[in-house]
């Protein structure tokens, strides 16, 4: 006899996934977004809530290495997957090359879109170690910045790619 499928819900459910290399388990309602789960349940407030409707990219995190809008991703959909946030970049106090380049090139002003911009750039460098300026534009065209730090974001991403290549 086939095994009965396991149904979840309709109330809150347990969801286990990986965040910045550590296993986590949260108990969340099925409609709870990954963004709210990161911010309110796990205390990771790097990803920002700006539009909460997939328009701006300030909540960008990596899901299995690919940039996603965490406000458009349900926490339950992350079960068994790996999430990386801006807090997980860099190790032992050493910044990730993208973070370093953002500081060096002054690629932010108020900094509110910055975690999302950085995660989009990190995602780009994961799939393309030597991107062109056009690749950078494509990678961060879904990340809005109201202060207008755009020119420096492009130069920061390109410089980070070079730096990463040398490491």
């Amino acid at each position: 006899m086939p095994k009965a499928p396991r149904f979840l819900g309709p109330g809150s459910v347990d969801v286990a996934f990986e965040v910045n290399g550590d296993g986590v388990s949260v108990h969340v309602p099925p409609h709870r977004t990954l963004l709210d789960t990161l911010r309110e349940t796990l205390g990771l407030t790097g990803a920002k809530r700006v539009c909460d409707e997939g328009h701006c990219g300030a909540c960008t995190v990596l899901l299995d290495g690919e940039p996603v809008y965490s406000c458009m991703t349900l926490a339950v959909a992350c079960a068994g997957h790996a999430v990386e946030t801006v807090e997980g970049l860099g190790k032992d106090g050493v910044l990730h090359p993208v973070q370093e380049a953002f500081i060096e090139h002054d690629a932010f002003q108020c900094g509110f879109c910055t975690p999302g911009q950085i995660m989009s750039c990190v995602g780009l460098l994961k799939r393309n170690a030597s991107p062109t300026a056009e690749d950078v534009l494509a990678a961060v065209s879904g990340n809005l910045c109201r202060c207008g730090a755009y020119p420096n974001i492009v130069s920061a991403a390109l410089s980070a790619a070079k730096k990463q290549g040398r490491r």
Partner: protein
Amino acid sequence: MSIKVVRTKAEVEGRIMEQTALVEGKDLAPWRADSGLAIVGKRHPRVDGIARVTGRAQYTQDLYLPGMLHVRVLRSPYPRALVRRVDASRALAYPGVRGVLHRFNAPKAAFRGEETIFRDEVRFAGDEVAAVAADTEEIAADAIRLIDVDYELLPFVPDLEEAMRDDATRLDEKGNVTESGKLDRGDVKRAFADATTIVEATYRTSTQMHNSLETHGAVARWDGDLLTVWESTQHVFGVRAGLQAALRIPYRDIRVLCDYMGGGFGSKGGAGKYTIVAAIFARQLGRPVRCFLTRDEENLAAGNRSATYQTVKIAARGKRIHAIEHLSWSNSGQGRWVADPTGPTNGLYDIPHLRTRSYKVVTSLGALSAFRAPGYVEGTFALDQAIDELADRMGEDPLALRRRHAARQTDPATGMRYSLKRLLACYDIGAKEIGWQHRTPDGTRGSAPHRRRGLGMASQLWGGSGWPPAYATVHLNPDGTAVLRCGTQDIGTGTRTVLAQLVAEELGIALGDVRVELGDTNSQYAPISAGSLTVSSMGPAVRLAARDARMQLLDAASGLLEVRPTELHVERGAIVSKGRRTPIGEVLGQVENYTVIGKGSRFPNPEGISLKTFGAHFAQVEVDVRTGEVFVEHVVAVHDIGRVINPLTAASQVEGGVIQGLGFVLSEERVIDRPTGRVINGNLESYKIPTIRDVPRITVRFIDDPDTKANNIGAKGLGEPPIIPLPAAIANAVANAIGVRVRTAPITRRRVLEALELRP
């Protein structure tokens, strides 16, 4: 130190006001161009960079206090209505709801001249009707839909030009239109009669919405009598004053904090209704309360740049501009003030005959608020296009025409001499960088047969002098590191970094040894971070505080090293005596713990001198005449702002201003649904702020000539100047490219195509 009363002139939105303030001690001689500064004037990455790139920077939105409740606001769906009855019983019965506030149960709380937060007559779609505090934001959002409200609908006017009509519904007892500014110079009537060329045109600008990425919001917590409010604000002391007025509690019992904040372009100037609501709920319910606007609410009820309707009549006599009549009507919505788009006309060019009038128009829409150079962006869009239109009619080069009226070193608005004005140098640099010599009156062929290329430029005038009061303290620790404590805010402009540079320079320690603590009303007063006045107001006070700390340190070192203070100085973190260096920490380490505390105040501006910033933007565009699309290829931005403290962050600020200006002139336009009076594009998808793909090549240049008459650091403001001339420069470049002029911002494809069809 003794306290003195000083009087000073302050310029707010082009209006000069007399102010009285207290200062301590005496001012310093200004740093000069040849002062040999080591840290000021150099490129330094932001001192808070690591916090911002690691996600550790804590913004108000990131604050989740234990037991905190969440508020959502029910907003009027109608643009004008009487709130007859509110029944919150269904909402209160909803699990997780802890409280509901509305006009029938909320305590009286004065707010911007009104007695209450929740109006009996709601006056725009988005006006606050009720608020719910609940265990989660989701519950609060569900519960506001369970509040039953009886509205009695009233006639409304959702449009600027409709409100201006004589037969429009009167929204205000005084009428919808009131005069808000006027200036008469010479005799325009006679001047127009004497003129050899006259051009008249009407210009319109659309409502621009701030859309700071962090929406307006606050978190409030009471500990006994003490209210602590964290707020995303440009002015912690303004929030404090708003809370005092609303709640009638003494300053002793209020502390307002803003460490990191996610953007403020003028609209976060004081306490909002969300602040007061959070504080009232927090007191009633005994728990911390958070009230943040959603993106949609942000675009309904958090301010905007007024749409304008402007007419300009401009006349030449011979080779010179002889007279201008500039009339402007601004949509203030339900706001109580209005910016003045005729400001640039009154003060930018030396023109003998002038008549300007500025009118405030009330409509059934959300209140305006200051938005990066309010009035000046809109006004320059009209003025500098009118000058180009006149130049075209005269067969003159528009830059050459401006030069004739830009050289004088006297402020035409006040008759006072400028402290420093390098506008002609801005023209020279900009013209060279853009290749102005290649400009032809009819534009040139673009990169494809259906593309035309054009060059345009415009000038910038703004204040940015700063003024008292502003205070700072520098705390020099026994180990030789220092903490600067002041009540200002870093809204993304790099204030922390620039002020740290000033401390390090004046105190003689390394930049890395300075920490800046700001955004706290437990400090001495600091002004609003707006009006391009943070560096020019705070900077001189910070320098004085660092100097005071240095003098005290030398006194202490003198006693400890047994050398006269005059034979000592501080250099790179060490006390130097007759060539011998002793690290500060070693000197102060000889005694038990002592923190040197240096104090500094901002001294008044000089009497009888006009302090202004100037600049010019040059733009090269291509226009696709089949689609109407405008492609901006290159922008050259040149600014004359006195000393540049940090060329790295200053250039970023200029790029940001240029990009926001591009949004204003090419894509940003609030759309109102006329039948319902509601904002229908209050989101970041259909309201088009520039994306990274919209950014052209931007060349930034500074004159970087210290204004030694302005203040002791020689710096003026930069926040607003770089948005002011950009829209007009683009509009002029578009007109140069296609031979017809689009007089309405934003210059959308539709408007370009409409203009081209009218082409003779």
